[in-house]
């Protein structure tokens, strides 16, 4: 089989079933993924964004052989994640993060030693490799302390260290900087970039838009179990209607004013949002030709009018896409 891309997923669906009630007689079906298609290239950092419960962790677990999809096909590094999981596992790394997933009563070094052994890190290189990853995540000083004494951020670093311990070709990172202080989060992003420089493919889920914008070559937005958009950050900006965002705020606008704003050259969409007594209209603009004066000219009856312009952020794009899907 030829290796088309690092990750190749087609029509991936996943349904969870659980029972509740005294006699376990109530069956609950939850459709976590509803036909996900995705390709990730070798050596890229690919970001998966989505609100809580969108299916990000479910999809990450399927890619990392921890969960079998209900239907659809997934290949990672050219190997089927269900049928060829044993061949795939030595070549992938997974960082799920959080407070759990570590042996709390032994030291960080002992944790890494255990996982190095069962992940098949050659014994002759083991101690050196453990030291390398400890240095890389800046945990050397705490290496011989029990994990239960670690802060949340230190545990997160240890998760990362374990994920890269066996030198995986592709690394799945599920919210890798959650719980880290700004300095540690920045170091983690630096580490992620250095891994890519070493040829590792990174599949990243995150809630931090600036992180995705800073790190990822391409991004997909997952909402309610479906990919609603996938592109570069610039491409996503275009998708939601433009690079420029103009915001106008006043004590209410009438329908005619909103329609006039919608008809201005380059305006792709106008969204309204209430802020107490005030109303904010957010306009996505495709061209540079539209000036703020032209906007003000449409709203002459509002002496208290505030107009400002900014670059459309990834957060704007994300919120637009997720809200659009929800509506």
């Amino acid at each position, binding site marked *: 089989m030829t290796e088309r891309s690092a990750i190749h997923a087609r029509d991936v669906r996943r349904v969870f079933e659980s029972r509740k009630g*005294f*006699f*376990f007689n109530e069956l609950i079906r939850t459709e976590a993924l509803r036909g996900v298609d995705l390709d990730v290239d070798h050596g890229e950092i690919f970001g998966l964004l989505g609100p809580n419960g969108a299916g990000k962790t479910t999809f990450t677990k399927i890619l990392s052989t921890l969960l079998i999809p209900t239907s659809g096909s997934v290949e990672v590094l050219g190997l089927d994640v269900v049928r060829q999981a044993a061949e795939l596992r030595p070549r992938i790394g997974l960082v799920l993060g959080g407070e759990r997933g570590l042996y709390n009563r032994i030291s960080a070094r002992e944790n890494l030693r255990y996982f190095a052994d069962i992940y098949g890190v050659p014994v002759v290189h083991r101690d050196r490799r453990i030291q390398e990853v400890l240095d890389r995540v800046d945990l050397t000083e705490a290496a011989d302390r029990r994990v*239960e004494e670690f802060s949340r951020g230190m545990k997160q670093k240890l998760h990362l260290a374990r994920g890269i311990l066996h030198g995986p070709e592709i690394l799945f990172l599920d919210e890798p900087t959650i719980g880290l202080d700004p300095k540690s989060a920045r170091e983690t992003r630096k580490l992620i970039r250095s891994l890519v420089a070493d040829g590792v493919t990174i599949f990243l889920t995150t809630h931090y838009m600036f992180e995705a914008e800073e790190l990822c070559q391409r991004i997909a937005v997952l909402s309610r179990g479906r990919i609603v958009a996938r592109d570069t950050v610039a491409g996503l900006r275009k998708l939601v209607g433009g690079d420029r965002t103009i915001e106008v705020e006043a004590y209410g606008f009438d329908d005619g004013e909103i329609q006039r704003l919608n008809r201005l050259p380059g305006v792709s969409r106008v969204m309204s949002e209430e802020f107490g007594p005030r109303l904010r209209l957010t306009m996505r603009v495709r061209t540079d030709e539209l000036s703020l004066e032209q906007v003000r000219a449409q709203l002459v009856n509002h002496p208290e009018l505030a107009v400002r312009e900014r670059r459309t952020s990834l957060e704007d794009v994300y919120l637009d896409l997720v809200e659009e899907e929800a509506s």
Partner: protein
Amino acid sequence: MTEPALRSSFTRTFWVNAIFAPRTSLGFMRLDFVLGTIFIIPLTQMTFFAFVASLSGTPGGVAFVVVGNAVATVTYSSVFSVCQTTDNEKEAGTMEHLLVSPANRFALYFGRGLIPVLASLATVAVAIVYAVTIFHVPFAGGSVGDLAVSITLTAFAMVGFGLLLGGVALYLRTSIILGNIFLFLGLLLSGANFPLSVLPLPLQYVGDLLPLTWGISAVRAALAGAPLGTMLTLWGYVALCGIVSIGLSMALWNTFERRALSTGSIARF
């Protein structure tokens, strides 16, 4: 409009802990728990010791051992379960939130004992039915009323004892170890399997401090149709064990709450 001041009344705290806490951490509301703890464990434990007694010719005979173990099985749904709530709270990270709450501590902790008391009552009642119907323990001269009082007081005292151990466990890393120790000690020091008099004197004194010892004696006496005077004395001891346990548990909760907060052991499990 001003918001009303926060109020956490005694009864509100008691009921929310009585109903909610067991659902979150003990699984009392599940069929597997009911079947396992109330119906299966008593039957298998009693059967095991009945066979042992019939082979070994133990001093009290099969009936003695069967009744002793029928009452001893209450340990699972009382001491062990109540004790375990402390661990579950620590693991879930909810213990800190309880400790910073303004709720009345007595209502908070004792409320948690209500469902275990009911489960304990059910466990011993089922076990006594097994004893009389399956193992043919004589009940001709006994009084159902005396038996009911004995079982109720035992359940209450054992849950109180569980709360006491739960208080100690607040300071320890884990309470399961304590629950297990007293589960096993119950087999040795409560007179469940052989009369306490065969043990060395110091161990007899330890046995006398356990509510289970008096609970077993009361149930045996009720089954045998002991006179009211004897029953009142035994009930007095069972109730005393329960009251002292609860009193001590409150004192310990306060002491260990302070110590646990100072050593930081609450966050660990």
